[in-house]
């Protein structure tokens, strides 16, 4: 795993297909807005109709970031008049003038409609520092990640444009070797916890944070990015272009024990803090990772090899979870797919793959799209969210997927879901025990003629037709291995009970009746 000074690769758009179902990424205008609005002094004016503002900055943001609405975002409120006759400039100018207050840097972001009608921002004051900047989001073509990457690069290219107000005080200087953290922005899954964990690690090896960009920065902090000794890019989906231009050694947020140890060691080396990094790893083993070690040494881990999972997520999480849960913990990966970038799998492929997977994954990490597939296809898999879209609250900072704390948290999740699956398949039911209908003596008396019945009486074994057996085997194979014994017992008991009541063998109809919830397609 060559993490050290890895050459940032280019960010590549998710291909636009001829048909789209259940999209898993937003477009360029959303991505750009999420970058600029993250800046403490950023005011964003979207050049579009109200929907292009309220949908991402009020409705969706409430379920991705649990923010009631983004107060520093507005739009030009295009109406028919602007779209068909007047063009967007007059209304846009008015909105920009309102947004352009002292101490705020205005960013104008195009939307699909404004791009379609060829609207752009023209102004005579573009050389004036602090004047509004126009960003072409290329929303008709670019996805949110590409737009985030381009927006961050755009900020760097305009770093001399931004004005540091006097009220901001002197430029802070870091006493110790310092690092930049690039990403997250608004709308990045689980980023609050991931960021907290990376900051904890940086502090743990005795380094300072130079700038958390853009999430904890102002526009005028952009030029300070070059003051650090290294850059950590949180997610490989965006920020690489900025990191490359800033030109410092670049690292990506790590997943799992091995990755994290390499990350800490290499980061320490880049900052001249080798000894501190080694000491941090040593102390983590006794603190944060003590829990990991205990779980690992428990029987919990015995089930890992037979608990297949599937991962459908953008590249950072998909690769990271696969490396950690697959390679390191040894959970079989029955299916994994990217949901962003050139290799992204369309929804129909994911659906087909998850339905065909045998055994069905015990657990599927994904977005609401996968959750819907589980429900619609009646898969026996459990779901855990690892990606947007899908409404979720992830503001407590104790649920990281990255770093040592992330390794512990993910291990805990997997074990809990394992237990939950077990519980759901427990063979005894909550119903009270069946009533004894006859005294033992009577049972024995009735059984006297069992031998003479030729296998047709109450003691007989119920026969299964060949079809029924085949279907039952097929069904049971789709059940996670972990609970296959319980399910087989349950299926047999229920099927034979029905057959006995109906006075025939167990046939396909009976098996189908019982296994409706597990029926293969």
């Amino acid at each position: 795993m060559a993490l050290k000074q890895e050459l940032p690769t280019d960010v590549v758009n998710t291909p636009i297909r001829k048909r789209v179902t259940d999209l898993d990424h937003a477009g360029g205008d959303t991505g750009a807005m999420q970058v600029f609005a993250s800046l403490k002094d950023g005011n964003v004016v979207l050049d579009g109709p109200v929907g292009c503002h309220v949908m991402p900055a009020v409705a969706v943001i409430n379920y991705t970031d649990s923010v009631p609405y983004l107060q520093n975002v507005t739009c030009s409120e295009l109406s028919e008049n602007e779209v068909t006759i007047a063009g967007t400039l007059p209304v846009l100018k008015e909105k920009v003038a309102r947004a352009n207050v002292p101490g705020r840097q205005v960013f104008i972001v195009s939307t699909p409609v404004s791009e379609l009608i060829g609207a752009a921002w023209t102004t005579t004051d573009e050389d004036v520092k602090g004047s509004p900047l126009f960003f072409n989001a290329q929303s008709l073509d670019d996805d949110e990640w590409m737009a985030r990457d381009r927006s961050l690069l755009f900020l760097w290219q305009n770093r001399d444009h931004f004005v540091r107000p006097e009220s901001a005080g002197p430029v802070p200087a870091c006493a110790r070797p310092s690092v930049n953290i690039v990403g997250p922005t608004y709308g990045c899954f689980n980023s609050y916890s991931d960021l907290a964990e990376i900051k904890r690690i940086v502090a743990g090896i005795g380094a300072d944070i130079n700038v958390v960009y853009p999430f904890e920065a102002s526009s005028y902090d952009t030029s300070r990015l070059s003051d650090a000794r290294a850059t950590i890019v949180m997610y490989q989906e965006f920020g690489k272009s900025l990191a490359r231009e800033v030109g410092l050694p670049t690292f990506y947020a790590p997943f799992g024990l091995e990755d994290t140890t390499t990350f800490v060691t290499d980061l320490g080396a880049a900052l001249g803090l080798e000894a501190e990094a080694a000491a941090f790893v040593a102390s983590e083993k006794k603190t944060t990772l003590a829990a990991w070690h205990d779980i690992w040494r428990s029987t919990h881990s015995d089930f890992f090899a037979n608990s297949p999972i599937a991962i459908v997520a953008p590249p950072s999480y998909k690769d990271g979870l696969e490396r950690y849960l697959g390679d390191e913990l040894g959970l079989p990966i029955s299916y994994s797919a990217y949901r962003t970038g050139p290799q992204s799998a369309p929804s129909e492929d994911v659906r087909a793959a998850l339905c065909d997977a045998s055994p069905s994954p015990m657990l599927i990490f994904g977005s609401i799209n996968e959750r819907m597939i589980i429900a619609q296809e009646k898969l026996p898999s459990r779901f855990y969210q690892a990606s947007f879209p899908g409404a979720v609250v992830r503001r407590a900072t104790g649920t990281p997927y990255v770093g040592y704390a992330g390794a512990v948290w993910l291990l805990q999740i997997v074990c809990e879901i394992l237990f939950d699956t077990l519980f759901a398949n427990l063979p005894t039911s909550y119903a009270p025990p069946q009533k004894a209908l006859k005294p033992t003596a009577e049972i024995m008396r009735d059984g006297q003629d069992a031998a003479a019945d030729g296998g047709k009486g109450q003691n007989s074994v119920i026969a299964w037709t060949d079809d029924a057996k085949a279907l039952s085997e097929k069904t049971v194979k789709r059940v996670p291995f972990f609970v296959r014994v319980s399910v087989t017992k349950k299926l047999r008991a229920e099927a034979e009970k029905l057959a006995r009541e109906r006075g025939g063998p167990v046939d396909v109809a009976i098996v189908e009746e019982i296994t409706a919830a597990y029926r293969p397609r």
Partner: protein
Amino acid sequence: MSKQASSMCPAFGAIRNLLRMEDAMPIVISSGDGCMYGHTFVAHFYVANRPIFSPGVSSQMWAKGSVFDELKAMVIEMAEKHQPSLIPICSLCVSDTVGLPFELLPKQIGNTEIVYVPLPAYSVHTHAKAKDIVVDSLVWRLPSQRKARAGVNLIGEVFPSDPIKIDEVLRRIGSHVNTHVPGPRWADYVAMVDGSLNAPLHPFYSESVKRMKMKQGLPFVEGAPVGISGTYSWIKSVGEALKLNPAVVEAVASEERDKVEAAIADYPLNGLTFMVAGYEGHEFLLVRLLIEAGAKVPYLSTSVNTNPLAREEEAWLRERGCTVLYGANFDNEIGALEDHPYDCVIGTTPLCAHAKELGIPSIYYTNAMATRSLMFAEGASDVLSLVMSTYRSKARYDKIARFFSDDGVPKRTYTSWAPTIDITEHLLANAAVAPHEAAVPIAATER
């Protein structure tokens, strides 16, 4: 200050109703990934566990005209493979601006109807308007001739048990509910031509009922059976429109009115001041109920635009000291928090966020009200008990507001470039933000 009403993408009002139809397969022609992502996100949260289809769109595809070819292929394939009753084609901003030749799509394939639903959000403006467009587009497809007609068509999303209650009351005066839209099946819309009266229960279905009057000759009555006087006058209007026995109608209307009055008496809101803001379009009905229960509602804002169907309702509210603001947006609403010392806010997400910041008990209109019945006595009790319990948690809101303020006096953080107002002093003066002791629930509520 915004000029237009603030609303989640207006087109979503239409998409949600179409996605809830069991025998429809809507195609949403997205304006780009951002647009599609937003609609998918909220649809899968609020509406339905089902896929949303769109042809792919990119600048190149628009330029080449391949979007329409793909759309047409999709329509034919979906109709042949799934044979739904209806394939609504929702055309959003970009496709409607580009102007796809929708008239070249087949109108029927087998039993499947293909209906174009124009939803350019920049001219639709509100959720409510988009819902009107859906009903209108679907019903406009139906032929105009029908001889025998009976019963009342209910138009507007209501609580699931409302149509049953309405039907029960209508049967007592000699009529019944014929159909209810937006409904889950195409047949619910088709049935509208069998009715003899349209009853838009929300005022924003103005275009649908106007055009149905024109094409189908169907009359309509305004309002809904909500509140004391509202319940009485709605039953009376239906009776008159259908020329039913006046004595029977009067008796039933009075009886229902008395039941509502008795229900409301259980929840006296005397002395409390409410602010109501929403984008659903049935805000009027809630305010009527609050006022009848004794509350002051000096401010009502709705994202719906002025509307002939709401005129009577609006006059009723104005007479009782309520300022009605149409086409309202977040800035208007948040600014208006300053005008009165509010005890409780039922509003949009941003408005509630600011009200909570000041320690004012608040609930989100859409989530709280769309899940409840407002009609007749049961509806009145249901809604008023929710409002009452919200108000009574004042102490909790107050405590949290103080915790998050620097000096124990809640202040608003609404300081973006929109009007920067510090209304704390004003609110303190008006006692909307109580001094340090916890708020005491009004005595009347201690039953």
